[in-house]
């Protein structure tokens, strides 16, 4: 059957590099990084992409609430103002851990993701019941995929997709137990990489059936069926996710101009990605990971990186992979080392995560 096309219109984000997308872009192109050494309480001193909380509170439209709520609201506010939600506008939220730090003080109800979703929907004046995607590190990208599919099915006309996660003792301690925290700001795809830096961010995109700046050509989100924490050594799920996106797009895979990779800087993730990209013949395509700027922002990362990809395509500029120096994966990749002028028509965004999950989306600039 013929599916209606779905378009990405405009994106925004809040991160340690700035409280909107233009500021983030400016800081990224100047080579700033958001990862700093911070005191994470019982977890000790670690490198994380942490917000300066005193910078965000004055900008928050609502006085009360958690840091995450403020960040999500600031990210979404300009888009909700411009594209007024109707009774057929979806709010698709993405988060892995939401307000989990409320467990510290025993507030179990407050830590529920559905409670967060309700609050955010009310603050943004959304009329429909929020759809909450909680799917590990692919959540942000999967939320966009879900919104696109539900719009294509006619359940909604348009959608605000909003993703966010914050750095907490809860998450840092878990990654430490996994021996996965980098002792320096993370170095995606690099020989000396030694794990992730965690980060916090919120990102938002408005999408609809109305023609917009970027058309979603295809997508896929296919499981490795291999291990709950380790990525597949053959990159099977990621390969299949990209192949599904290419098939739906009906394009030649060689027409992809740029890849915004996941690139967490763990030994196994980056290796898996190199295997998957090379299996698909994508090793020459310019590629970067933004984790070296922001850290791994978990449920926000897929959407944050999609937002920066959109900006990148608009500006005709590709960013380098911060932290990368020497290739440290088994398959050749064209990892961007310098800021590069390039007109990008078609971009591939990917993400992979715990539970064997993978996601891929191809967008085209109109």
């Amino acid at each position, binding site marked *: 059957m013929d599916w209606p096309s779905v378009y990405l219109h405009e994106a925004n984000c809040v991160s340690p590099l700035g409280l909107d997308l233009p500021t983030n872009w400016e800081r990224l192109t100047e080579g700033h990084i958001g990862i700093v050494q911070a005191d994470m309480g019982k977890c000790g001193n670690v490198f994380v992409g942490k917000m300066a909380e005193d910078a965000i509170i004055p900008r928050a439209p609502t006085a009360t609430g958690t840091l995450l709520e403020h960040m999500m609201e600031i990210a979404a506010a300009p888009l909700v103002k411009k594209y007024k939600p109707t009774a057929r506008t979806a709010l698709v939220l993405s988060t892995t*851990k939401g307000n989990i730090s409320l467990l*510290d003080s025993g507030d179990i109800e407050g830590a529920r993701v559905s409670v967060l979703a309700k609050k955010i929907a009310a603050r943004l004046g959304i009329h429909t019941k929020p759809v*909450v995607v909680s799917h590990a590190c692919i959540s942000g990208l999967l939320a966009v995929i879900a919104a696109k599919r*539900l719009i294509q099915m006619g359940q909604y006309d348009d959608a605000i997709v909003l993703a966010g996660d914050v750095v907490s003792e*809860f998450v840092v301690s878990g990654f430490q137990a996994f021996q996965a925290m980098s002792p320096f700001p993370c170095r995606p795809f690099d020989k000396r990489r030694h794990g992730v830096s965690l980060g916090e961010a919120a990102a938002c995109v408005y999408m609809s059936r109305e023609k917009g700046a970027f058309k979603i050509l295809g997508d896929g*989100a296919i*499981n490795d069926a291999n291990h709950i924490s380790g990525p597949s050594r053959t990159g099977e799920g990621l390969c299949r996710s990209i192949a599904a996106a290419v098939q739906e797009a009906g394009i030649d895979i060689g027409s992809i101009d740029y890849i915004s990779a996941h690139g967490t800087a763990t030994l196994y993730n980056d290796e898996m990605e190199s295997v998957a990209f090379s299996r698909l013949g994508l090793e020459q395509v310019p590629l970067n990971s933004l984790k070296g700027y922001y850290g791994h922002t978990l449920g926000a990362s897929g959407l944050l990186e999609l937002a920066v990809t959109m900006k990148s395509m608009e500006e005709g500029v590709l960013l380098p992979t911060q932290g990368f120096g020497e290739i440290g994966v088994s398959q050749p990749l064209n990892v961007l080392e310098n800021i590069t002028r390039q007109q990008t028509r078609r971009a591939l965004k990917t993400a992979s995560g715990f539970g064997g999950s993978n996601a891929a989306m191809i967008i085209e600039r109109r």
Partner: protein
Amino acid sequence: MTDNMYIERSCRISENTIWLDGAPYWKGLPAASFIDFAKEAFRLLKVDYPKFYKMDNLSKLVFLAADFLLQQQDKDGIALVMANRSSSLDTDIKHQQSIQEKESFFPSPATFVYTLPNICEGELCIRHQLMTENIFLVDECFPTETIEMYAAYLLRSGKAKRVMCGWAELFQENYDAVLYLVGPNGEKEHTKKNIEDLFR
């Protein structure tokens, strides 16, 4: 919207009882805790799968429901579309307890990995070798329309041959799993009303 799509089969597990296609299939001891119930139900399956004992309770629940649901089924191309209310909160609290006090700060990787609700789907994919589309949603109650639409999309777009949909809720001793297979065969049409009937 739902032509040629049927609810082929369903399995529910709640209150120490397993139902298949709406009929009681097996009942555990009424006073048993979830963990004892799950062990007993697992033995009933007579499968050699020691990893079951390493799973958190949400994954155990979903593992059992899916195993009963998929007995004698062709597993090719089954996608997973699930939701629950409590996300992974049951395990989140266990991880929190391991980091609450500085003196007893020993976060466990085997616990932490389950602090994401989609891990239970990952376990099913490994168990049944499903290299397929997966999504996990969190909502206060079963988001019938969204799940119906999402499953229908996967089938119509050819991204899945069949879809295992359902509700996978567990928090402490309260649990309710309702899994159902949507595909091209059967009598019960894949409609909102028929989906809602599974929850009665």
